[in-house]
């Protein structure tokens, strides 16, 4: 248990997990819709503020799990309630807690029916998402991982668009299919590790190579669907298009990160040798996703679909960064997860704001609103620029580090930088589809529909978007504090990797022979 730093004081992580759940229960007793909205805002706001204490207590000088809480839970199967954070999860935890109040605000007038149930779904979602990022017991993780599906399914199926049933069922089936093999892998690991579900103990064990490959493949399927990696992405555009704004934001900003988080937390430390051997395939799949996502986004007429496909491309960059297996790449990938959460979340909020006015997600019906919504397009311009990695914005830093990691991967192999250069068309395409969208919305053409009746943003909407803009510029111009948070853990992860490098090469050689 030397990887753990126990939390002797206030059980802050447990409070973060259970406060939204308690709020959801309390909501049952509220009747007025407005009271439900305000109460949910207060609860999610309180969680956001409390999560800052985690940041205050977090020690950036260690790679160990911190603020750990450990309680016995189901002794018969040695299942425990163990939670903690490290440099890999803390940024994602904060992203989750800080984004939720804005999801509530964005649904203020958007959701008009069954407000109470909607807010309950949001709070249950929050509990599950926070739990996934801090769980250190595999059963706890798995339960929360699956628990997320239900409120998300409801968000799409009840408050979604015309094809909501198709989209929500597709979302549910895809993710469920992925997690079944995950469960098998968990049980195998449980049996091999003296019947323990404790995650840190499963890491860096010398499992036989063939077993590692099978476990890795099980992990891969579950996480690749969640990311989603090409070609497992088809559920995403459907879900995004039909989901209400808050659902899209949660989906894009947080749920997608669970896949890449899973790779970092489980696949890399538990199956290091399989990871090294199979990494090239994952890398080229990432490149395929980057380019495929870019081209598909370029062809979209539906703004939500456009952003959904752009997510496929952006998350391709994240998996690229993870599997180049060097510090720059992995740090860039974690930073890019946060960046994508901020930028894409904000873009979905922007599209939601247009939708509330025009009741259409079609790009053509939003052409030329720039003239009448100057405040809106200022925000939209910043987020679009950020989305394609404009220098000075957050995504640029992430992309820069990831591509630098890819170049380093190539030079370490003493070869022409094929991998890094292969990802560049993705960056070009990103500029193309984002600028196309921006041009259409701001300017349009010579025969725009009459948009003069449209109102610019109101105060609530400005309040929602401003913090996103603040982080876009902060991470864009001063990313060092964010990198410092993760540096120790990433460094530790990759040092362990180096130790397994020779093993892997030998094992792969044996396999080939």
């Amino acid at each position, binding site marked *: 248990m030397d990887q753990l730093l126990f939390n002797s004081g206030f059980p802050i992580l447990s409070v973060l997990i259970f406060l939204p759940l308690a709020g959801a229960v309390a909501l049952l007793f509220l009747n007025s819709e407005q009271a439900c909205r305000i109460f949910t805002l207060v609860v999610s706001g309180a969680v956001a503020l409390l999560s800052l204490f985690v940041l205050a207590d977090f020690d950036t000088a260690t790679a160990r799990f911190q603020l750990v809480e450990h309680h016995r839970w189901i002794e018969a199967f040695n299942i425990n309630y163990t939670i903690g954070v490290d440099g890999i999860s803390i940024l994602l935890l904060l992203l989750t807690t800080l984004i939720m109040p804005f999801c509530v605000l964005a649904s203020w007038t958007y959701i008009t029916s069954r407000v109470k149930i909607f807010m309950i779904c949001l709070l249950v979602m929050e509990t599950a998402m926070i739990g996934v990022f801090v769980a250190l017991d595999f059963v706890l993780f798995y339960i929360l991982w699956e628990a997320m599906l239900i409120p998300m399914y409801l968000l799409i199926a009840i408050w979604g668009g015309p094809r909501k049933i198709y989209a929500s069922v597709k979302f549910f089936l895809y993710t469920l299919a992925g997690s079944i093999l995950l469960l098998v892998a968990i049980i195998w690991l449980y049996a091999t590790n003296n019947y323990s579900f404790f995650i840190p103990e499963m890491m860096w064990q010398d499992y036989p190579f063939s077993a590692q490959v099978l476990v890795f493949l099980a992990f891969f399927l579950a996480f690749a669907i969640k990311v989603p990696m090409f070609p497992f992405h088809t559920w995403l555009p459907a879900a995004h298009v039909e989901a209400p704004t808050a659902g899209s934001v949660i989906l894009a900003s947080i749920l997608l990160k669970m896949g890449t988080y899973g790779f970092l937390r489980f696949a890399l430390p538990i199956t290091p040798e399989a990871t090294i051997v199979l990494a090239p395939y994952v890398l080229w799949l990432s490149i395929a996703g980057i380019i495929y996502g870019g081209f598909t986004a370029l062809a979209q007429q539906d703004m939500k679909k456009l952003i959904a496909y752009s997510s496929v491309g952006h998350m391709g960059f994240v998996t690229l960064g993870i599997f180049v297996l060097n510090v720059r790449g992995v740090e860039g990938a974690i930073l890019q997860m946060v960046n994508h959460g901020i930028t894409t979340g904000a873009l979905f909020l922007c599209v939601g704001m247009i939708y509330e006015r025009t009741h259409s997600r079609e790009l053509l019906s939003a052409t030329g609103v720039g003239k009448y919504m100057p405040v809106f397009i200022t925000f939209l311009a910043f987020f679009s620029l950020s989305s394609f990695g404009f220098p000075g914005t957050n995504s640029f830093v992430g992309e820069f580090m990831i591509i*630098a990691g890819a170049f380093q991967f190539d030079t370490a192999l003493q070869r022409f930088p094929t991998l890094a250069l292969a990802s*560049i068309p993705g960056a070009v395409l990103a500029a193309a589809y984002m600028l196309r969208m921006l041009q259409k919305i701001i300017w349009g053409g010579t025969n725009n529909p009459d948009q003069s009746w449209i109102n610019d943003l109101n105060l609530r909407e400005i309040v929602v978007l401003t913090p996103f803009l603040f982080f876009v510029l902060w991470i864009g*111009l001063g990313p060092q504090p964010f990198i410092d948070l993760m540096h120790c853990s990433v460094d530790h992860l990759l040092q362990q990797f180096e130790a397994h490098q020779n093993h892997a090469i030998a094992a792969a050689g044996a396999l080939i022979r």
Partner: protein
Amino acid sequence: MDAPANDYRLLFALLIPLIGTLGVMLKGDRENVREAISSISSILLLLVVVSMVAEVRQGKRLIFHMFSLLPGVSVTLRADAMSMIFALVASSLWTIAVFYSMGYMRGLKEHAQTRFNACFALAIFGAIGVAFSDNLFTMYLFYELVSICTYPLVAHHQDDEGYHGARKYLVYLTATAKAFLLPAMILIYVLTGTLDFAATITGGIFPKDANSTLVIMLYIFCLFGFAKNGVMPFHHWLPGAMVAPTPVSALLHAVAVVKVGVFCTTRVMLYVFGTETMGALNLGIPTAYFVGFTVVAASIIALSKDNLKSRLAYSTVSQLSYIILGVALLTEPAIQGGLIHIVNHAFSKITLFFCAGAIYVATHKKYISEMEGLGRTMPFTFGAFAIASLSMIGAPPVAGFITKWNLLVGSVEAHQFGILLLLIASTMLNAAYFAPITYKAFFGKRPATEPYTGIKEAPLAMLVPILIACLISVIIGIFPQFMMHFVKVVTG
């Protein structure tokens, strides 16, 4: 190396156009206040830039550090001799262009003048940022900013032609930057651990044992990545951008935007690769011949253009490559000749574009064939045009002669007779497409159907800037020492 103290004048120089932009946007409904803000910002900027001249002339480097992103990647401003060349040109011509565009935009009663003025100031913000950038990242940031914020200027008329030109503009500039510059910058960072420019033009920043194949690849990426430099085959955006109002073509597409491209290219050639690396890898002479093709080909295309602005645009494409050609020859006079052409071309070409705009405002004529005999009606405009075109041809005593002289000496010193012939051929081509315009305007026969009744000289707000710019072209041709001093500091 201990970090020098921050010099706040650099920050002011950067912020003045930005604050000017915000001021213009806020006071957009009041024409006179708005334009007062533009002109005051431009004058203030010029004063701040001039205030740094004395120290930089002594070879000092002023630094202002803004943000640190990663180790070796920061937003930092520097003023050295090379940046002053461009900063002085951009800021002084902004002052002149502000007055000119007031006359032009009001004369034609253009729409959306607030947006126009705001984007104009923002483009200058970007250009000043490029001039004063201390590293590749800062340069890339402002380079991209210029691409984005000039889009509204090119698309200004909001008709099909405007949108088409603007789309081409943005596609060429952002695609090349993303496709070539981005990977080049990142790979340079991976190879060297820094993006800061070297202190002098000799050494560059690459370690001696760097993989030469990669360095050559990076060099090619940088040459094409800064597509604002108009080197063929990525030059199409420039003629396309001529749909913009003439002040834009004048300041941005003869000075600010295109010079951003050339400045970036030469800055990277000299301060990232360095003359030693370029010499060792034999990159210089092939580059000179490569851009030499652009010099000649663009001149030949210019011959065939009847639209005055198109002819000027192709002339710009051709002249920009002179600058790169000079630097690529790597001999001292050639580098000096190339860099000084940033100044010489700017003043002369802006005069030519100003004249084209003045002719358009006074007569609504765009085509050279329609201008026969017009010089006798508009003697000042065409007089200035004639003098500035002499500069483009490279005839003494106008500024362009200084360039040509240095380039010819430089090519002889480099023993490149091919380049020498190329320069002579291009001079003849320059004469071939400029001289007939002046000749026809003054000595051509007025068409019988159009007696030019009611046509007068352009308004004073336009004529005065034209004459000032023209006068400066002559002065820096007769007294080149002031600007040459900076160039000499660059080459050491």
